[in-house]
């Protein structure tokens, strides 16, 4: 019975784009469970989960942006800025609540700015968010003078704490993934996000409020980046203005590895999480197997290509 439904599940996956990344994830995991005695230890698996969590959480927001045919390059900087704002306010007001709220709001506001630049000023999101990438990082540096600010309390619990040995950030990721999955597949706004990504013009003609939905996805992505910043800084108990630098590529890679099309309209939330897990698993593998320095870099590239290449070969020449 369980066996059978398991099979159906796997077969169901086969039809989806995330299938090949999932296969790659499974392959790496199976290989690791033979190659390293430590891999299957619950503690290690949970570590991998924690390491994937921030990328996965931010990638949830990014996935919605990309499904809606946008892109947000600023997430890495927003991570840094939100963390810094939260830490500075927490330090200056002494109130955790104010600090954390301000951190999340910062993410939200950055997202809204991106959304407004896109919808009101009609700036290509690639350029608009490349701009805010720079601006947000600059503000974080200006606020702190480049010096990390200590950060602790509840955020540290979220970033580094555990409940029954399970990292809180991993639990949070699971909860958020479920919420975003339900949101994307079962709510009106969720469905409209897919619609505008697939065919913006037709969606607008059908009465979908293009601007509102676009603004929403950018704001939501910003909010999640803000949350990611709090988790990351909480984990380190320190808000570094350079926190999250370069995360945009990891996050976008997780989204696309997970089978979301950069051209919009298609994508799965499950896939995003698998993509983030694959990337965390790779880093874990390097350490567990003690792969030599430069081969780590090469291997990472190869795995990324294989993960998606399997899918391409299978699909054959049906496109174009």
């Amino acid at each position, binding site marked *: 019975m369980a066996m059978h439904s398991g099979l159906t599940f796997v077969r169901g996956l086969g039809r989806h784009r995330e299938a090949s990344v999932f296969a790659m994830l499974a392959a790496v995991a199976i290989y690791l469970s033979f190659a390293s005695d430590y891999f299957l230890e619950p503690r*290690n698996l949970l570590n991998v989960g924690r390491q994937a969590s921030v990328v996965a959480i931010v990638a949830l927001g990014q996935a919605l942006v990309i499904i809606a045919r946008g892109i947000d390059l600023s997430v890495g900087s927003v991570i840094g800025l939100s963390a810094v704002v939260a830490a500075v306010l927490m330090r200056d007001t002494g109130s955790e609540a104010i600090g954390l709220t301000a951190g999340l709001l910062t993410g939200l506001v950055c997202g809204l700015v991106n959304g407004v630049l896109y919808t009101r000023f009609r700036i290509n999101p690639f350029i608009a968010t490349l701009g805010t990438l720079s601006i947000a990082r600059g503000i974080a540096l200006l606020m702190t003078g480049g010096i990390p600010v200590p950060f602790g309390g509840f955020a540290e619990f979220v970033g580094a704490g555990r409940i029954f040995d399970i990292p809180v950030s991993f639990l949070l990721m699971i909860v958020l993934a479920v919420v975003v999955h339900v949101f994307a597949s079962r709510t009106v706004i969720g469905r409209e996000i897919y619609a505008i990504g697939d065919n913006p013009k037709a969606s607008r003609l059908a009465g979908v409020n293009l601007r509102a939905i676009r603004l929403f996805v950018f704001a939501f992505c910003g909010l999640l980046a803000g949350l990611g910043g709090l988790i990351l800084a909480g984990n380190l108990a320190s808000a570094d203005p350079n926190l999250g630098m370069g995360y945009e590529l990891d996050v976008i890679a997780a989204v696309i590895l997970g089978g979301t099309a950069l051209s919009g309209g298609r994508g799965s939330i499950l896939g995003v999480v698998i993509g983030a897990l694959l990337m965390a698993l790779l880093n874990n593998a390097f350490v567990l197997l003690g792969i030599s320095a430069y081969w780590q870099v090469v291997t990472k590239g190869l795995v990324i290509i294989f993960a998606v290449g399997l899918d391409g070969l299978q699909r054959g020449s049906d496109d174009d």
Partner: protein
Amino acid sequence: EAPQGGSVAAVENTKGPVRIAFLSFQNNPFWTPVTEGAKAANDYLSKFDATVDFVDLGDELSAEAVVAGIEGALAKKYDGIVVVPIFDGTARIINEATDEGVPVFNIVAEGATESRRLAFIGQDATSAGKQIGEFIAEKMDGKGKLGVITGYFGATQHTQRMSGALDYLKASFPDIQIVGPFENKDKAESAYSLVQDMMTANPDLSMVYMTAGGPFGAAKAVKDLNLTGKVGVVGFDHTPDNMQYLKSGEMVGLLDQAPYQQALDSSVMLYNYIVAGQEPPAKVIPVTGKLLTPDDAK
């Protein structure tokens, strides 16, 4: 007499106004004392009708940024340049400046290719690595497992610090087993995860050596794993985050590069050369970093 924090005094200015460009970066707390040193030099030298203009080359460290910065300073006709050339590939433009009669003083780190700069003041990364290696060997009692995390694979300074320590340890303490190196791209969060994974695969690890950015991430991981006292982290730079863990004991050794003094002395020596032709004491002026241990932090 020499300014506070510096070791060189300025000579009398008989030449008229002197303008020095101080080219440096700013992307993490390491640069704060460098900036302050430059400011102090400006304050000190203003009494001698000389200015030291701090020019930020931005937050992305690269040879191209250095080259562009020197080109800009030459265009602005400065009398001398203090620069942090960090990378290989800056020698040509430094030579060009020297040929045009604008002396260049290198500080902090320079590429492997010799240039005709006036002088270099800074820490030799390889010997700094060796200094840390000696410290590690002593701390580890000559045996056990050492995890290594480097900033960027292929970044000269990081590589030299790493091999300075590892070559020494391999030669003198074959019982020290090395895990890694792994790359953290100067990120504390990445150092955190790497230490977590290293401890998983090597529960008997007793020391982590970080060659570049984000050592406090490694220290935080040690703390969260409740391994304070069992696993120690050694690294570079007396930044506030690092110092905090030196106090709490996860960090057991921190080497600095006396950046304030480098910035201040170089500016004054360059000024002395410009106004009086006074050569610096040597072509390479070594700075021995101060190695702080938890005892110093208390």
